[in-house]
């Protein structure tokens, strides 16, 4: 049991160090640049304590739960050798983790407001909520598709940079045709779809797959799933803006 506390204590020190820069930056701007007193010092300190404890637990649980499960699943699928189930799993993981992502829900709602303002849809609540949920499912579908494509790439050992370059070219071409209002949101949606729990899981899955297939290098073939997952939403959100 004491081992657990030693390990927790050690990662707690790490968490404090990870958070120190934010505290320094905020303190400097508040006290030196803006020259304002720090409001609600007690709340601030308890909040910081929560952040440190939370980060510590998260990192600790990551190595205990998320990484091993991703690895175990990857090995199991590789041993089973069923492409269909692996790809179905990849799609579900991408779709399922994205569709409920709070950051995506927020971005979709913003996008609906922009669309209504731009006159693309009616400025009623029902039209907006239809637009927002349509967008959400579109992005979730695109992330699912991205993970499927990424997994196929790992299996086949295709070089990543050609695929990403093709994706970029598609983004650039789409930019020329998409309504101007949607472009900023589309670009942002690439970054917000991958949540804190999805990233470690998907990374462990990719690395696990690459290390259990002969002839694949986990470093070259294992990484890259997140890159696909942040690229396809841009294309699909712009397409959505053009179709609706």
């Amino acid at each position, binding site marked *: 049991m004491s081992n657990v506390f030693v390990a927790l204590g050690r990662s707690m020190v790490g968490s404090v160090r990870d958070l120190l820069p*934010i505290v320094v930056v905020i303190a400097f701007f508040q006290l030196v640049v803006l020259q304002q007193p720090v409001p609600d010092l007690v709340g601030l300190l308890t909040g910081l304590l929560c952040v440190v404890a*939370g980060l510590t637990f998260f*990192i600790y649980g990551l190595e205990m739960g998320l990484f091993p499960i991703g690895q175990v699943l990857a090995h199991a699928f590789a041993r089973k050798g069923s492409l269909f189930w692996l790809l179905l799993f990849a799609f579900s993981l991408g779709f399922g983790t994205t569709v409920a992502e709070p950051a995506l829900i927020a971005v979709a709602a913003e996008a609906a407001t922009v669309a209504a303002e731009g006159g693309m849809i009616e400025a009623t609540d029902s039209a907006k909520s239809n637009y927002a949920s349509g967008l959400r499912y579109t992005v979730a579908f695109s992330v699912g598709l991205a993970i499927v494509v990424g997994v196929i790439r790992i299996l086949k050992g295709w070089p990543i940079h050609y695929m990403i370059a093709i994706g970029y070219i598609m*983004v650039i071409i789409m930019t020329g045709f998409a309504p101007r209002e949607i472009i900023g949101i589309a670009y942002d949606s690439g970054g917000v779809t991958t949540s804190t*729990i999805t990233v470690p899981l998907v990374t462990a899955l990719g690395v696990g797959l690459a290390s259990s297939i002969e002839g694949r290098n986990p470093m070259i073939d294992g990484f890259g799933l997140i890159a696909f997952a942040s690229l396809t939403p841009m294309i699909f959100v712009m397409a959505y803006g053009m179709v609706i």
Partner: protein
Amino acid sequence: METLTQLFTILLSTIKDVMPIIAIIFGFQLLVIRRPIPHLKRVLFGFVYVVVGLALFLLGLDKALFPIGELMAQQLTDPDFIRGSVMSADEALHWSDYYWVYIFAFAIGASTTIAEPSLIAVAIKANEVSGGAIGVWGLRLAVALGVAVGISLGTWRIVTGYPIHWFIISGYIFVVIQTFFAPKLIVPLAYDSGGVTTSTVTVPLVAALGLGLASTVPGRSALIDGFGLIAFASLFPMITVMGYAQITEMVAARDKRKREREDTLIKE
């Protein structure tokens, strides 16, 4: 008491976010793979730690960092602050008058990236997979620098009003060209680091900065120009991570040449 209810609400919503993941994993485990998970108890405890940790983390951010960070973003972008005591109210602002905004964008981008949990996860994995060749801190600092440069450039774009796609398209072209010169091993990781940088900590603060800036700079629309900072923050880490690998490789090659030269000298 209020904090406890808040913690409870956040804990519930975190559990709700994790539910689909757990359902998918265990559904496939039970129905398709049909093999017991090794160390099941440990893995489940790990999940509990992750969920509780994330909930505490979000609660702390909500209580401590976000209110003050968002307030700060508003104050820094306020035209009255930017004019300071030197300029009169009717004088038009030049883009260079917003220097504190750019500095803040740089500092907050770098410091929030260092604390980003998903980046820590990827750095740990990359260090493990590369057998220690890629340092956890080297990667995190490279990504942090990329986010910092990206966000400060993004705020400058909002102030000047140049179209976003010019920047993003030239960034992509740069990334594609750089790919051919970067060490092969780093490329996939560099592409990944674009997507992982922006999650829990960075997005809310950066969004507040973008919206604050777009709503106060004359001629900008908060709806159109307020977005796009995240895109900048996901683009530049790719460039800095590949750059980091290129520099490491160059230094290693130079050291090797130097050692070989010394060896030949000794032999002679």
